[in-house]
């Protein structure tokens, strides 16, 4: 459940944007225009939950759900710092109550329930509040017959919430049962990174699973595997492409095509949902 160290976060210097992979710098406007995909090396930088929603939702359609839902420090947890201090700082910095943003939106004209993880908020880790907001978004999508689209970027469990974090895996899967019972599709999009408890629960259960290029995806992080087993890691281990080749991911999609691919999927899947809605149960 460790955070992959392979991809540095983009550094913003004045009006310039420096790619975390190739270190080249571009004007901010150019970087934003390419959706923070490096124009030179095509490295997909991690983006905030708010930026992800801006990129995917039709302009002006996003309506946030449960904006005030925040958790607390149930265990009184202190590691190298107090958890309450880490939480307060992350809330201030990321402008989110916890590591997920959810709401109603349209994508290419198709209504959806949309969830987006924020890696900058304590590694996008699964807290009780994240699990609750995710579960509510899933359930509301089921009730409103909105296809549910979730973009995950998460290191997995939040250690500071102990076993409560672990139980969010169960909570999210319990909520997904309602989506399945309502025959509403779930499109799971895996962004860098999707690890541990996140991929071992809701994120792996999409009816359709897409991933951004070279995202790190897996149950146990590479560093932990090496320490535990001394195994040699194969080339491209745990990338999107690695899992795609093994039948675990449907398509690897460049961020610049993601909205369009979603639009095409929703045109097929969304139509089936709308039809179901008009059909007697």
């Amino acid at each position, binding site marked *: 459940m460790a955070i992959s160290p392979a991809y540095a976060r983009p550094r913003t210097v004045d009006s310039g944007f420096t790619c975390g992979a190739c270190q080249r710098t571009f004007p901010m406007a150019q970087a934003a225009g390419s959706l923070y995909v490096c124009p030179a090396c095509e490295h997909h930088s991690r983006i905030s939950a708010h930026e992800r929603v801006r990129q995917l939702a039709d302009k002006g359609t996003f309506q946030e759900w449960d904006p005030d839902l925040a958790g607390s420090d149930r265990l009184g947890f202190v590691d190298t710092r107090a958890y309450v201090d880490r939480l307060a700082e992350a809330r201030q910095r990321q402008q989110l109550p916890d590591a997920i943003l959810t709401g109603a939106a349209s994508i290419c004209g198709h209504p959806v329930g949309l969830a987006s993880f924020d890696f900058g908020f304590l590694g996008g880790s699964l807290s009780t509040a994240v699990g609750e907001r995710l579960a509510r978004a899933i359930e509301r999508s089921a009730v409103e017959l909105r296809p549910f689209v979730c973009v995950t970027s998460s290191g997995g469990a939040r250690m500071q919430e102990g076993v409560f974090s672990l139980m969010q895996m169960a909570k999210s899967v319990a909520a*997904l049962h309602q989506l399945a019972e309502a025959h509403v599709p779930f499109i799971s999009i895996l962004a860098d990174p999707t690890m541990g408890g996140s991929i071992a629960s809701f994120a792996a259960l999409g009816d359709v699973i897409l991933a951004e290029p070279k995202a790190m995806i897996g149950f146990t992080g590479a560093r932990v595997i090496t320490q535990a087993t001394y195994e040699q890691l194969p080339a491209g281990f745990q990338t999107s492409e690695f899992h795609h080749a093994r039948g675990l991911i449907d398509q690897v999609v460049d961020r610049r095509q993601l909205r369009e691919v979603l639009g095409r999927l929703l045109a097929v899947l969304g139509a089936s949902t709308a039809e179901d809605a008009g059909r007697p149960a």
Partner: protein
Amino acid sequence: MNSTDPVGAAAGDAAQAAWAHVEVSRHPDRPYSLDLVQRCLDDFIELHGDRQGGDDAAVVIGLARLGGQPLAVVANQKGRTLEERGKRNFGMAHPEGYRKAQRLFTLAGRLKLPVVSFIDTPGAYPGVAAEERGQAWAIAQTLEAQLALPTPYLAVVIGEGGSGGALATLLADSVLVLEHAFLSVASPEAAAAILFRDAGRKQQAAAALRLEAANLLEWGIADEIVPEPPGGAHTDWDETARLLRPRLEARLLELTSRGFDPARRRERYRRLDGLFSA
């Protein structure tokens, strides 16, 4: 740690107590799943394989009876001898182990058998081959299978309950925990490596995670703590089983006699943290 500092000393005591709990749960002479299955259940018949090409020995499945009631059984299995430890992979399953559990849940649903699971695993196996064959997907699908299971389901944590690998057979209608067993989001060693970047601070991590059985009961994650013989289950396997069997029987009777609805199980795990009103 400065011994004249009372706060530091108290933290040290908590760390020692939490670590002692972990050490008993991992004691090399502690009864493992099959030791307790043989002593608590009648007529156990082992089944093999996930029916998809694998038979992971870290997970045992089978049929048995308890007080006349036929059951489906799923259990994590550790090995005691060097050879058996290798064969059982220290109780750490590969994807085939989780798919074997899924097969058991499917079988139980079809034949209307209640399920009893015995949990004792450090966690899912953290290896290259496990990742290549979809470890995360296998666990996720097993979570889904448990929450869809249409029959009564009882789980008992008998030793280590490590992370997602334990959760794969834990999402039951009733959860029992042996007195010195634990459930944790990560092993204390892994948590220490992540939190302190130092696996050596495992005692401190164990205390911070509050992973002891008593907390699970307080938080409603477990329904009952089953006492062990004085000193721990490793001192007397027969006595451990003698204490456990009537609790399994009582819980099973409770589940099978009331109007059973798997939606209640989903509701339990949906509302488990009890922090948010609907």
